[in-house]
């Protein structure tokens, strides 16, 4: 009797444990899926908070911190009130740093850091362009070395050049080859799981089309 009871309890525990990690995967899938189509800052904030809760509960997983940072970086890009941009970029940087400490030398995390630096530029392009533009470029160089097959590296490099004035070494002509490489690499890229980062293909294709106009 006791034996059956104990084995039932162990079964319950084991079920609970696997339920936990499949709970993680389910929660992540639920929140990663809308990332491709989300467009409002409010929705991004909700997703960011969801990822933050998962990250802080799990403590040792880099992916939820990465996505929380990614959402905050997107909000920083979309925010038009210049007084608020740094607040979001700071929060994104905190999440990126956590992801970095949990998964060092990770190409995706470095891409995220590059996005955070670029997001700050628009607050004062004349003064910040040089400092954050350089920092962003350095993070992407590191990301490329760590994983040359990561299409997001080329997307972000190309996007950076696209929005930089030609006088400073940017412009459509400079962006085109990078965006072409990004589109090619998206075609052959296989994410490690369906919750690992895979965003950006539509963005790359659209920007590449604009380069030819």
């Amino acid at each position, binding site marked *: *009797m006791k034996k059956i*009871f104990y084995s*039932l*309890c162990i079964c*319950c525990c084991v*079920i*609970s444990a696997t339920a936990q990690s499949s*709970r993680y995967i389910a*929660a992540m899938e639920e929140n990663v899926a809308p990332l491709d189509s989300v467009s409002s800052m*409010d929705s991004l*904030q*909700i997703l*960011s*908070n*969801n990822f*933050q*809760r*998962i990250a*802080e*509960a799990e403590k040792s997983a880099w992916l939820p911190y990465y996505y929380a940072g990614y959402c*905050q970086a997107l909000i920083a890009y979309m925010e038009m*009130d*210049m*007084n608020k941009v740094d*607040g*979001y970029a*700071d*929060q994104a940087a905190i999440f990126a740093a956590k992801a970095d400490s949990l998964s060092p030398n990770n190409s995706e995390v470095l891409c995220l850091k590059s996005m955070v630096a670029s997001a700050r530029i628009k*607050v*004062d392009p*004349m*003064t910040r362009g*040089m*400092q954050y533009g*350089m920092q962003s*470029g*350095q993070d992407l*160089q*590191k990301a490329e*070395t760590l994983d040359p097959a990561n299409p997001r590296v080329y997307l972000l490099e190309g996007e950076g050049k696209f929005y930089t*004035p*030609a*006088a*400073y*070494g940017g412009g459509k002509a400079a962006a085109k080859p990078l965006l072409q490489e990004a589109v090619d690499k998206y075609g052959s890229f296989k994410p490690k799981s369906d919750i690992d980062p895979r965003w950006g293909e539509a963005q790359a294709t659209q920007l590449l089309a604009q380069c030819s106009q």
Partner: protein
Amino acid sequence: MKKNFTTMILMAAAGVVSGQIRISGKVTDAEHHPLSGVNLAIRDSYDGTTSGTDGTYSFTTTEKGPQVLEASEAGYSTDTFPVNINSMPLSYNPVLVRSYGQLNLVTISAGSFEASDEHRGTVLKPLDIVTTAGANADVISALKTLPGAQQIGESSGLFVRGGTGEETPTFIDGMTVNDPYFSSVPDIAQRGRFSPFLFKGTVFSSGGYSAQYGQGLSGAVILESEDLPKQSSSTLAVSSVGLGLGTDQLSKSKTFSYGGDLNYTNLGPYYGLITQRQAFTTKPVFWNGDVNFRVMTSKTGMLKFYGYGNYSKLGFLQPSLNNPGQQDMFTLDNENVYTNLTYTDLLNEHWKIYLGASYSDNADKIGLGEQSGTGDTLLSLNHVNNRDGLAQGKIMMTRYVGRFSALRFGTEYHDAFNSFGYDQYDTNYVDHYLAAFAETDLYFTTKFMARIGVRTEYSSLLNKWNIAPRISLAYKVADKDQFSVAYGDFYERPDTLFWLNGYDKLGFVRATHYIASFQRVSHDYTFRVEAFYKKYSGLVTTVPDTTNGGSGYAKGIELFWRDRKTFKNIDYWISYSYLDTKRKWVNYPFAAQPNFAATNTLDIVFKKYFPAITSNLGLTYSFASGRPYYDPNLPAADFLSERTIPYNSLGISYDYLANIHGAFTVFVLSISNALNSSQVYGYNYSNDKTRRQAIVPPANRFFFVGMFMSFGVNRTQEVIDNN
């Protein structure tokens, strides 16, 4: 047993499928405004939600027992609330407090315009100063477009609120700069010696400045030099007046940097093309060079050195006023050295130390002569040799108190040497100047602060000391709006030229400032209005003998409006100053409006960026009402009653940005006084009062063409190699 077993299974099952408990509430900030987008969570659990636009939220959880509820949002401190979850729904209404970086603390703004990248709520960025049309990248010329500064074209310096150029000294990294402008040339204002690119922060004070600084009756130009560069770079400048080379090298470890500049300016070719009023016998040539190094001695420590040297010469003839038919000759050879060494560090989380030392030496060899009308016979030549040297040391300790307040105190010592030689006669003066100051920034709340300070100074030459209290208050009525008031005493030694007349009867000159100001600063707009009253006592009178027998006042109101948003790609600002001032000093028979004060001054600075052709167009329009001048033919009662014509000037600059083989390049074209307006600063009368000469600029317009290239060393390859 069976019963217990069933109960246990049921309890185990209950643990997996227990009921959901609802947690809800409303999130607000310290001012009771609802906060949306806040993350509500149970620590270590996935359960939670995000607050809506009205601040309310609601979620259910399966967690049980003692838990901690957390509410967090970017820019605020996280709020926590321990609860015990059983079977009842819970209510949690967190109030979030802003975290430090987002606080937008109130700061003293009365009498102060700051240009800085680092501090929030500043009116200008350093780049704004560099790109002001008509200023030719001279810090002082650019500051003249701000309220409080007069448009004085014939003398060097900043003439602030009815004060002379000597009343507004310049400081670099906390230390007095004796010769911030190139040496004076009669009736031609000289530009500042130092490139604006050296500085990360500029504060223009039109009054009420901190107790850390002294010896300025009217205001101060407070410059802060750059820290380590972001990357190594080299620059090349080629222009219609000269050449320049420079470099700034950042170490691989990014902990130290060194650099230097070398500039050669020769106005000869330019004067050959554009005739000046004066006939230049020695076309102006300037050689100057500077070196710097900056070392991060620790995570919080910085040691900076800057050294500058200049050699220049010029000479010209102009028709003599006193001896018609003859020519007055003026020649000048100048040698100048300026050095500045500073060290700052945090001793621990509460204490910061600042040490500064500076040495400067300036030698002017001036020739004043008379030449015959045909220009080949020298009739007389007198030599004037002026030398001034300054060695100074300063130490300041800062004690941080609480979250925002600070206490600063320090002392400085100056060894000032002045020598005047006229032909075979010469006199020397040495002044040992000692000052001590203490000042506290008291933050009663993040919206209300007071700066209370006192400064005491001693001059061995005058054998006098003074004590100057200074107090400023600032109150933030709303997120972008603040009021600020300032009161203080400001002392200054009489100008060195007066010492020649006998300094034993002289003491410090004193000005008392009362300033009230209101400003609204947002990212795109700035509005400022300021009213001031300045009372002078102890101004130097030279008749019947040299004493501090004069007095005066200056009062007025100033407006400033800046708009960076309304018109696409256009940034403009408007400054208006109204000044009512009278003083009795030097040989004035009674108090009168001095010849360096115009009643109304208006400046409009306009910049437009053309993204398609990566160009900037800048226009600066300045207007000032007529300045008083002295006509000796009028009776004494009409002293300084005459006025010159109003001053008008439109400066235009156009710059084009390009990328040449990876080098960031700027082409600049600028014209001062593009509309060829007549400008008269005053009149010089001959000794016999029968003739007069208008004091006008050397040429109606100044044309400038230049190209600047910056070559950055790309360190990304090194970064990859190091990794």
